[in-house]
């Protein structure tokens, strides 16, 4: 367990020894032909892939001004070099954000700049060779699109958009990634990432109703496809399957119940996640987003609330209106869409929720800001609401809350290491390495304040930490949902007096 000793003393942001090429062999499994064609991409690497890729770069350059600015503007100042958790965790210089961008920039310069066309050696321009394409496949799948580097870039260059473009180009020539593309196929066919059919969902929800009633004596409903209710809740499908995700779902249901606001889950839009964003495909992203609109119209709801999912919130908050709007049929007195934390906070402000904080006294808690919420969106009606609102909820539900080091949270938060379409087993080495800075920050707050648990509000963060926490000497169940803490502490009207084993989720 030398790794654990290492985390006890280490600075989360310490710059590692360089290890050139050490992660070159890290590659995700390729998408099968049927996963590719279902999304409208070539089934396998096209014979004229080179020319197709260059044409695609040209197309993106015309379509997205940001893409062109990011590729043109970099002055190699070096501010981003030590800001990526994958670089900090692996030491591979190609995981420096500028180097990752340069994988694409070198080809862009070769074909789209005067100097690159005639004096390529002078400006670092290179041809798109099979070796370069190989590097793209490795290193654009070692970026979780968390945008930490862009916070420190004086020009605001967003590596996430470059890696999204890299993946979009690769998909368009038939070199897709299995994890994201297989999942997107399931969303199109069944309605969610898991491939969870309605019958299974209904059974799980009914089981949860029984469980909560047994624990509290109160029948809290988990409605499915109920028409004419106030709120449509769209959550990541992991909330119906995984731990600690489900514990968060129970928390949402208790909040709706106690606030007296009718709600439903839709079996058509069973997924808040939108992996179309990870692969940079506007068309795919739009198709996924339209399911939410269809469900909202079909069920006749007035409000749209999004569950705990990081990139889903970015997709919803930043893009939903242009992807699937206008949402003029919803009640515009409320934010459209609204985050579940925003919703819970609103009910707290209105005096509708009471918490018995002592129910969480076995927990000394910290909070992991999820990248897409922290840097890709906002929440509430004030700048920084995406940082303050979840913390206000956690402080209301727990007596013992401690933040991690300021340079590792909020706008500067470290990625969990599994975001952006990397949450797949064959990438476990890079996932573990990428989690290292966060794990070191957690180790520090555990040493300083006896912190035992870390809350998060993203399905990917929760699944990633469940996998990597044991590797860093923490308990697998040290990761909890924000609304799991709410679920433990919320006082339900008419609840029976608690017994020893009926306090809900332990952590």
């Amino acid at each position: 367990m030398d790794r654990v000793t290492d985390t006890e003393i280490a600075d989360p942001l310490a710059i590692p020894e360089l290890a050139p090429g050490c992660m070159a062999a890290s590659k995700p499994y390729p998408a099968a032909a049927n996963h590719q064609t279902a999304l409208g991409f070539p089934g396998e690497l096209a014979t004229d892939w080179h020319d197709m890729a260059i044409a695609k770069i040209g197309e993106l350059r015309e379509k997205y001004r940001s893409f062109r600015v990011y590729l043109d503007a970099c002055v190699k100042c070096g501010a981003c070099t030590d800001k990526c958790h994958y670089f900090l965790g692996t030491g591979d210089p190609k995981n420096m954000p500028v180097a990752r961008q340069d994988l694409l920039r070198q080809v862009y310069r070769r074909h789209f700049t005067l100097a690159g066309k005639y004096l390529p050696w002078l400006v670092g321009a290179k041809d798109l060779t099979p070796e370069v394409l190989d590097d793209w496949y490795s290193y654009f799948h070692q970026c979780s699109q968390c945008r930490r580097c862009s916070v420190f870039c004086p020009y605001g260059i967003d590596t996430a958009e470059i890696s999204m473009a890299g993946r979009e180009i690769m998909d368009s020539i038939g070199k897709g990634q299995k994890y994201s593309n297989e999942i997107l196929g399931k969303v199109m066919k069944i309605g969610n990432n898991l491939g969870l059919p309605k019958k299974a969902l209904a059974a799980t929800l009914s089981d949860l109703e029984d469980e909560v009633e047994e624990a509290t004596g109160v029948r809290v409903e988990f409605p499915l496809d109920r028409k004419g209710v106030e709120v449509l809740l769209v959550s990541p499908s992991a909330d119906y399957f995984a731990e600690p995700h489900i514990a968060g779902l129970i928390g949402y249901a208790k909040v709706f119940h106690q606030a007296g606001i009718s709600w439903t889950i839709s079996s058509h839009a069973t997924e808040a996640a939108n992996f179309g964003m990870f692969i940079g495909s506007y068309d795919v992203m739009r198709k996924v987003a339209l399911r939410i609109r269809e469900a909202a119209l079909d069920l006749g709801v007035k409000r749209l609330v999004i569950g705990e999912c990081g990139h889903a919130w970015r997709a919803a908050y930043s893009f939903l209106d242009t992807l699937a709007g206008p949402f003029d049929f919803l009640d515009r007195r409320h934010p459209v869409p609204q985050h579940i934390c925003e919703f819970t906070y609103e009910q707290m402000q209105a005096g509708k929720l009471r918490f018995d904080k002592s129910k969480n006294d076995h927990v000394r808690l910290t909070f992991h800001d999820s990248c897409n919420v922290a840097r890709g969106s906002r929440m509430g009606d004030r700048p920084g609401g995406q940082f303050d609102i979840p913390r206000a909820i956690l402080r209301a539900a727990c007596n013992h809350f401690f933040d991690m080091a300021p340079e590792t949270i909020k706008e500067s938060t470290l990625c969990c290491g599994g975001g952006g379409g990397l949450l797949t087993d064959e990438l476990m080495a890079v996932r573990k390495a990428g989690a290292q800075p966060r794990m070191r920050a957690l180790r520090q707050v555990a040493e300083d304040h006896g912190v035992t648990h870390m809350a998060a509000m993203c399905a990917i963060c929760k699944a990633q930490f469940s996998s990597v926490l044991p590797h860093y000497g923490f308990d697998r169940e040290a990761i909890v949902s924000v609304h799991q803490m709410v679920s433990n502490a919320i006082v339900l009207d008419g609840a029976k007096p608690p017994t020893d084993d009926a306090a809900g989720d332990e952590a």
Partner: protein
Amino acid sequence: MTAYVINGSSFEHDEEGYLKNLADWNKDLAEIIAKDEKIDLTAEHWEVVNFLREYYDEYQVAPAIRVLVKAMKKAFGAEKGDQKYLYQLFPYGPAKQACKIAGLPKPTGCV
């Protein structure tokens, strides 16, 4: 290796060892998959594997971990009804590793 072989018959699997054709599954195959996962199947493992198969048969998807935990608790007692017990049996995670051995598709998504 892209297939499991038993007595000269081969059964295709994907890159990660999940069976491509769910109908191929049988108990001998489960033993072979488990061996690749470095697991010796005991009666306790079979309790989980059998439950997963029954559930899949009914719902066409693997059960939520919570549902699995509760079912185990109900059928086999409190000491078998928690997540830690399932991870002892299937160190790489009850959802993924046990599904693989049970011949079911890998649960995908943010899990």
